[in-house]
């Protein structure tokens, strides 16, 4: 299951993670985000141990959304070694999403 990432655990879970972290910026009122949900869950199961998967609710975590200049949701970002290493905006199929994020 994807982790719920907040401003409190962001540093520990994302920036200090030894493995790449995939973050889904989403909100419950956004239909494309809701449709992306199961795909993100699937990735978290299939890539367990290889990629850490987390979700950031932009409604509750406005500071993080602002910090990473999230302008459209869903936005999926990848962090490697504590730094953003890829970003995709919009609903995509799992294969396309992973490919465009270079995973």
């Amino acid at each position: 299951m994807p982790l719920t990432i907040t401003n409190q655990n962001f540093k520990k879970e994302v920036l200090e993670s030894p493995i790449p972290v995939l973050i889904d910026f989403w909100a419950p009122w956004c239909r494309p985000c809701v449709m992306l949900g199961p795909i993100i869950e699937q990735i978290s199961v299939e890539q367990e141990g290889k990629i850490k998967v987390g979700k950031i609710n932009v409604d509750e975590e406005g500071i993080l959304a602002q910090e990473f200049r999230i302008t459209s949701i869903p936005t999926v970002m990848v962090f490697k070694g504590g730094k953003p290493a890829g970003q995709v905006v919009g609903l995509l199929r799992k294969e396309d999403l992973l490919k465009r994020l270079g995973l």
Partner: protein
Amino acid sequence: MHDVIVVGGGPAGITAAVYLKRFKLDVVVLMKDYGTLAKTDHIENYYGFAEPITGTKLVENGILQAKNMGIPVLEEEVLGIDCFDTFTVKTTKAQHSARAVLLATGAARSSLKVKGFKEFDGKGISYCAVCDGFLYRGKTIGVVGAGEFMLEEMEVLRQFAKEVVVFTNGEPLQVEVHDASVVTEKLVSIDGKETVESVSTAKANYRIDALFVAAGTPSASDFALRMGAFLNKNDIAVDETFMTNIPGLFAAGDCIGGFYQIAKAVSDGAHASVAINRYLRNLKA
């Protein structure tokens, strides 16, 4: 509650409606205009017409054919579609509900031809006010459009924005706009560092934090995008039964891409109708 709402009254939509009616389903067709076919004067390659026929005549015949079978064909522009178990289709005139929807609106329109448009796509340019409006609380939001679709999006954006600026991009404003400034000059460029910061016309520069696109009338891919359906570029992605990834939402004709021909659209419509019939029967079972 209808069984099926068909959005679009061209060859794909009408063919599907005719078949659906013959399957004894309650179907209604919503259409806004004659679409691409109205621009075609000579159709010589469609089966069964010994003499060339105009696109307009062909569409007229199709509508008449559907109406003669007792299918309501309503001239209503669809503004939005919601799906929660069933579908609610909001038009310029009314609200309709159905258990399945077929999108057959024709090809998606081209995107804005303005410098910077591609560059800032997803970086301040958005197509979905419901999704992204919230991210611009207290900010200045531009919205591109001149008609009902723009007004729909603007009403959503108003809940979040400090200020909304309407850009008609050279089109005459077709609706009344209150409490927002309106710029009617053509847009020349979209500018910013990482994200959108301003747009320019030949005359002036306007500071905005985001630009929402709601120009013209919404295309099938606009509905699909808002509902969370997969797209292939601008085409709606469907499976072999013409269903999208959203159960009950089907698409046929030019809006799913492929061969832009009447014969193909008619074929799509027929195939989709069979799948919709099966889908609805399974729902009941």
